[in-house]
Every structure is written in C-alpha cells, then in structure tokens.
C-alpha cells in the first residue's frame, strides 16, 4: 500500500495532467487501448487512408507475379513507347515493356529497400545506443562521437559517397543508407535508455547482481524500444525516397533491376513526349511514400502520444 502511494505520486506529478491543455480534459480516463484505437481511427481519416493505400501496395508487391498482366522484362518492339491503352494501362517503355507490370514489380523493390535499410540501421544503431546509454562514461562519449561523425554529413551526401565507394548497385545503396541511418537509432535508443536507467527497477536489478546483458535485454530494451519504432515508421518513407534518388542520379539500382527511381531516371530523355514513362513510376513513389508517412504519423500518435507535438 505504501509503495503504491509513493510510486503514484512519483510517476504522476500532480498538475501535469492539465498542462497539455483542454484536449486532455481533466486527468486520464484510462479507457482501454482498443477503445483508444477506435477513437483514434475515427478521428484520423488520413491514417486509414494511408493504411488502405499501403495494404494495396503491399498486396501488389506480394502478388506481383500473379497480378501483373505481362512479364515486366518482356521486350516487345512492336509496342515500343505506346501510350496508356486497354492493353497497357500505363503504356510501354522504349523496349516495349509493360509499365504497369514494371510498376507492380517495382513495389517489391521499394518495400524491400525500406524494410532492409531500417532493419539494418536498427540492428546496428540499437545495440550501440543500448550500450552507450546504459554504461555511460567514456564508452558513451566514444560511441556518441562516432555517431557524430556520421551525422556531420548533410543527408543524402554520405549514402552517395558510400554507394560510390562500394560500387553502384541496389544492395550497396541499401547498405549505404543503413550506415547513414544507424546513428539516429543509436541516439534515440541512448536517450530512451538513459531516461529509464535511473528507474527503480533497474537499480534494483543492478544491486541484485544480475548480468548487464540480462538487464539490458530483459529490463531496458522492452521499455525503450517504442521511440525507435516510432522513428522507424517515420523513416520508412524517407528511405524509399533516398533510395530512389540514388537510383535516379545513377548510383543505386541498375538495369535490369526494376526500381521506380531508376525508371524515372531512364525516362528523362523522353518524358516530355512520352510522359507516361516517367509519370507512373513517379506517381508510384509518391503514393507509396505518402501512404507510409500517413501510417507513420498515425502510429506515432498511438505508440507515443506524448510526442504528438514534435516532429
């Protein structure tokens, strides 16, 4: 009883509930999470829109081989550079390949890029952030200076340099993006860890001489991953954009890879006359990133309502 009293007053400083303005009304009503979700969805049509779009894109990517009307690599000069028609909804490119089919297969590439880059960036960044935040001290400063070095480059410049160094290819572009992205996860994780490191249960765990690894994995990680996840959902779209930009300037995906940025890039000499060669892949990038951003936005509201006001 006594304990609950202390903790209640500690974790819920009085007067805090009202500082967020009228939207929160007075104090928490503590409705169930499901109710909160329902209410959230009701308020947030954009999130639903994003989710819907993303589902369509995801399904397209998954079932591209069955959905695509043509083999995306099938060359047919007899229909070279034809505009949108019933046979080719999005027209054809300079090799007579069906652009709709290529856009569908392109969805795979973009989603794979997004997932891989974020996964690798998290895989590198999270352990660094965990260790850095948990142990602190000199190790922390060394690791953080290290991430500073990576953050010293304007966005996009480092991935470009790394891709070039490794040799232009889709895989290398993904590696480069992941390397440029991991410091953000290290930072976020470190922040989250530091804020909970001092919490009672961790100190308690430490005094009971449980191994550091166990504390990190059992106690800290489960409580610190939310900000990283929120960040990931926001980064997903930007990753796809960055990869498309790399492909566009010629150091990302290469033919015969089917990638939207590359498709736009290869259409540059023609798009004034054959607008569909660039328009549809460009639109695909836009819609996908938009969907992902809308979802990221919504997810942040659900997972981390406190950060609602921030970026």
């Amino acid at each position, binding site marked *: 009883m006594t304990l609950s009293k202390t903790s*209640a007053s500690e974790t819920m400083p*009085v007067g805090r509930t009202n500082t967020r303005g009228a939207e929160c*009304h007075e104090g928490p*009503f503590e409705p169930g999470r499901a109710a909160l979700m329902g*209410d959230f969805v009701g308020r947030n049509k954009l999130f639903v829109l994003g989710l819907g779009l993303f589902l369509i894109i995801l399904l397209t990517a998954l079932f591209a081989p069955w959905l695509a009307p043509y083999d995306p690599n099938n060359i047919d000069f007899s229909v070279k550079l034809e505009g949108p028609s019933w046979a080719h909804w999005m027209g054809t490119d300079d090799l007579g390949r069906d652009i709709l089919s290529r856009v569908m297969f392109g969805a795979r590439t973009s989603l794979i890029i997004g997932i891989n880059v974020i996964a690798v960036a998290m895989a590198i960044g999270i352990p660094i952030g965990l260790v850095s935040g948990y142990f602190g001290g000199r190790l922390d400063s060394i690791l953080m200076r290290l991430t500073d070095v990576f953050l010293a480059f304007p966005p996009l410049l480092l991935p470009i340099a790394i891709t070039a160094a490794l040799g232009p290819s889709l895989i290398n572009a993904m590696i480069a993006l992941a390397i440029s992205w991991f410091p953000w996860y290290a930072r976020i994780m470190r922040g989250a860890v530091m804020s909970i490191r001092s919490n009672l249960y961790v100190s308690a765990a430490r005094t009971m001489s449980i191994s550091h690894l166990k504390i990190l994995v059992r106690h800290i990680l489960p409580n610190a991953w939310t900000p990283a996840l929120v960040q990931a959902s926001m980064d997903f779209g930007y990753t796809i954009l960055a990869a498309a930009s790399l492909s566009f300037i010629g150091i990302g995906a290469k033919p015969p890879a089917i990638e939207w940025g590359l498709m736009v890039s290869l259409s540059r000499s023609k798009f004034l006359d054959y607008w569909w060669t660039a328009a549809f892949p460009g639109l695909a990038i836009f819609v996908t990133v938009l969907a992902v951003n809308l979802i990221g936005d919504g997810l942040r509201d659900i997972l981390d309502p406190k950060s609602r006001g921030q970026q």
Partner: protein
Amino acid sequence: MTTLLSVTGLNVSFPSIRKTVRAVRGVSLSLDEGEIVALVGESGSGKTMTAMATMGLLPDSAEVTGECQWLGRSQSLSPRGNRKSLAGQHAAIIFQNPLTALNPFFTIEQQLTDVALASGKVSRKTVLPVLLDKLSRVQLPDPAQVLKKYPHQLSGGQIQRVVIAMALVCQPRVLIADEPTTALDVIVQAEILQLLQSLAREEGLSVLLITHDLGVVASLCDRVEVMYAGEIIESGQMSDVLRSPAHPYTRKLMATVPDIRGGATVLEYISGQVPDLSRPIRGCAFKERCDRRLPVCDESPPVRALNDGQRYRCHLTSEQEVEFS
C-alpha cells in the same frame, strides 16, 4: 456582502464525431466579496473546466451553456471571443504549476507590463510604479530587482508570488487560483496560502480556490463546493462540511485527509474509478464506488439541504447519515 460572481446551470461538453464528453453538468456556484471558496474534487472531476468556462477560456471546440453574472450583470458563456469581457475585467486566474506559468524568454517586467497594459487599467506611463506596488504586496523583497529577472532566476515560491502579482496588476475583484500550490514544497505552500488569505482579508478580494486537497485549504476557506464527475455533490460552510460531511464521497474525502506532511494526493485511496463522462450516467455518478449503495441509486439523486445551508446530492437522508456515522 455583494455577490461578485454567480454561475447557474453550467454545462460544458466537448462534442466530437464519435462521442461527446460531458465534463461539467449543471454546476451552480457563487462568490461573495472577500470570501474564499474552495472547489474540491479529484482529478477529472471538472473543477478546472468550471473555472475556465467561467473565465471564457475554453477552446472553441467546447460547448458551454448556463448563466453567469458578474456583479449582477449577465455575461455570455460562449467560449468564442469574449476574452475582454466582464470576466477579464473582474477576475484573474492563476494556473497550477507556477514554474511553467511564465515565459522563460522574457523578463518579469516585460511580461507584467504586457499584462498590465492589456488590462486597460494602467497606462504605459504609470505601469512601473503599479508593478512595484503589486510585487511588494505579494511580499517579494526588492521588487525592482525582481522585475529585471528572468523566470529561471527565481525560486518556485517567488514565481508564484510574481504570478499572483500578475493577477493583481489587473485589479481584479475575483481571483481564481487553480491548484496554486501543488508544485511547491510544503513550507512555501503554507506561505502562499497565507498570502492569498491576507489578500482576501485586506483587499476584499474574493478567491475561488481550486484544489484536490481539502486538508491543505481547510483552515483557509469560508465555503466549500465538492465536485464529482462534473457535478457539485455537496456544498456549504467549510466548518459545517468539515464537521458533518453529508455525501458519502465527501466523507471518504475527509477520511483521506492526510496529516500535515501529506501534500501529495491521497485520493487514490478511494477505490474504483471516475465514470467515463462520454457515456450517459444513469442515476448517481458515485454509485459504483459507494459503500452505501442502494437500489434507488440508479435513479437521479435529489439535492437535499441541511439546516445551516449545507446542501448535498444523494438519496441518503440526513437521518440515515447519522445512523451511518
């Protein structure tokens, strides 16, 4: 005694697409000159909403109905565009947590000056002496020095005094203080409360003191209004209510009044939760948490009055109460 403020049948709700939160339901209260009234209730009971509605400070999305009179003159309660209204003329509000109440980027002087000028009662020429005067009234030593400072250079207690001074700059008749001491330590709390009391006594200022902590304000206040789930469930002279609380909720509240150290909330001791105000409430709002629940509690409870002006909203009669205690 003149009645400075009277509110009748105040309702505040926040409509949205899926549901409407009815935060305040049928609240009536009044404030006389020089009187200190406590508005008591736990978090989420609608105290702040009531105060904000009275001041016309709710966001535009709020729906407010009811009547409000300042010194006998009616005032619209609609939240849209009445900030320079009677409320603004006659009342000032102090929000909880003084530490965030002042803008960290501006000196005390800049902020007080802007507030003073906005009140329309002070001109740019006369503003400085007024500020110095108000600051000394709130017993701040060396007011001239204080004016030059930024908020972070002052202590919590000093800031709260500045905030009160800011309220006084507008020369209000009514001061609404929303949890003015919860962020402060116990000793400073006592000083601030004392200050409020002396201001009320010496300047004829009426104070509406919003608090969740009855114990802290008990000795200070003339009257008390107890709120629960958006309604006033008991009201009366402080001494009467303290001596014989009539509503089961008030009784519980009394029972949990802590000793002198207990600045922190103890309301968690009342088991159960405040009802969801977005759903219609059938009967008594407190019934789920009440030890004395009767079948009749599913019906709306009547307001009962005791002999000396104490009122409460419950199915229990005073006889039953006596029996119970």
